[in-house]
């Protein structure tokens, strides 16, 4: 199946690429723009931060992202309460003029695991205010169902802690989450290399979101291309249907006509 026919939707908006990428931790904006291009992503995450009043770098991130081509997904990274996350989303909507938000409410600096209690609070408020909410959450099927029930447009369970590169630690939970919700399931965080992204897609996830795996690679632009291919390969493999795992061998060549 070509990428052109295998589209998917978030809140009614259609996308072709199933890879979503972050914009953080690149050497410079140029490298970031090249990596985004190589990744084939259509959705890019950004953070909302105070403008440095006294010593401003006048170059804006948005000078390097063509908003006709890419959908911005502002995040609430660094927020540890529902209140801060909601404030950040309101600011993001005003700055970006879009309702899409990646909602994250963190519970702990060391693990950056979500505070799901605060996440639910924030999601409820934001959905009521008309935001398209994509929440970063634990790989917890019950939480994901609650977030869907609140009206979130997708659920984004973590594969492993943010920036850890540990891969998909609990593929079984991810599978249960997909059975439990109807909205898109996007694995967000934990991917370390291309095979991790392929595994997420082979599980049947609708998309994968990553930042550090690309920006932290020795060659971020090459890794962005690798992720592009891995997400497409994983998706194709999922659609093609893998063979069942068996303990013993099954010969691929005919048993008849062997010489001797």
């Amino acid at each position: 199946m070509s990428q052109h026919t295998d589209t998917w939707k978030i809140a009614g908006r259609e996308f072709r690429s199933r890879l979503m990428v972050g914009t953080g931790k690149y050497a410079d904006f140029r490298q970031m723009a090249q990596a985004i291009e190589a990744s084939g992503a259509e959705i890019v995450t950004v953070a909302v931060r105070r403008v440095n009043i006294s010593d401003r770098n006048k170059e804006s991130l948005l000078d390097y992202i063509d908003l006709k081509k890419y959908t911005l997904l502002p995040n609430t990274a660094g927020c540890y309460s529902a209140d801060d996350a909601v404030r950040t989303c309101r600011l993001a909507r005003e700055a970006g003029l879009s309702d899409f938000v990646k909602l994250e409410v963190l519970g702990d600096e060391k693990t950056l695991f979500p505070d799901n209690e605060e996440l639910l609070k924030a999601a409820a408020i934001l959905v009521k205010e008309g935001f398209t909410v994509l929440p970063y959450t634990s790989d917890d099927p019950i939480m994901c169902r609650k977030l869907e029930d609140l009206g979130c447009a997708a659920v984004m369970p973590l594969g492993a802690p943010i920036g850890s590169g540990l891969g998909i630690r609990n593929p079984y939970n991810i599978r249960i989450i997909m059975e439990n919700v109807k909205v898109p399931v996007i694995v967000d965080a934990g991917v370390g290399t291309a095979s991790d992204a392929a595994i997420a897609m082979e599980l049947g996830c609708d998309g994968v979101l990553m930042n550090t795996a690309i920006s932290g690679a020795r060659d971020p632009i090459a890794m962005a291309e690798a992720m592009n291919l891995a997400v497409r390969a994983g998706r194709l493999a999922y659609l093609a249907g893998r063979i069942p795992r068996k303990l013993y061998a099954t010969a691929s060549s005919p048993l008849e006509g062997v010489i001797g």
Partner: protein
Amino acid sequence: MKIIVNGEEQIIPAMSVHEYLHSIECDPMPIAVELNRSILKKSEYRTTFLAEGDQLEIVWFVGGG
């Protein structure tokens, strides 16, 4: 008068939010402004005047994941 901008105290003459943003060369940038914890729409910048003790948050997008 004294206002707080992004957590820092600033002494400024009486002016509108639009004039203030212009004075710090922020006006052409894709920013969002919160005045005393309420979002200020871009259409309100010219008609909103800063008052003593006001708290402004001026944000924009930076790289993030």
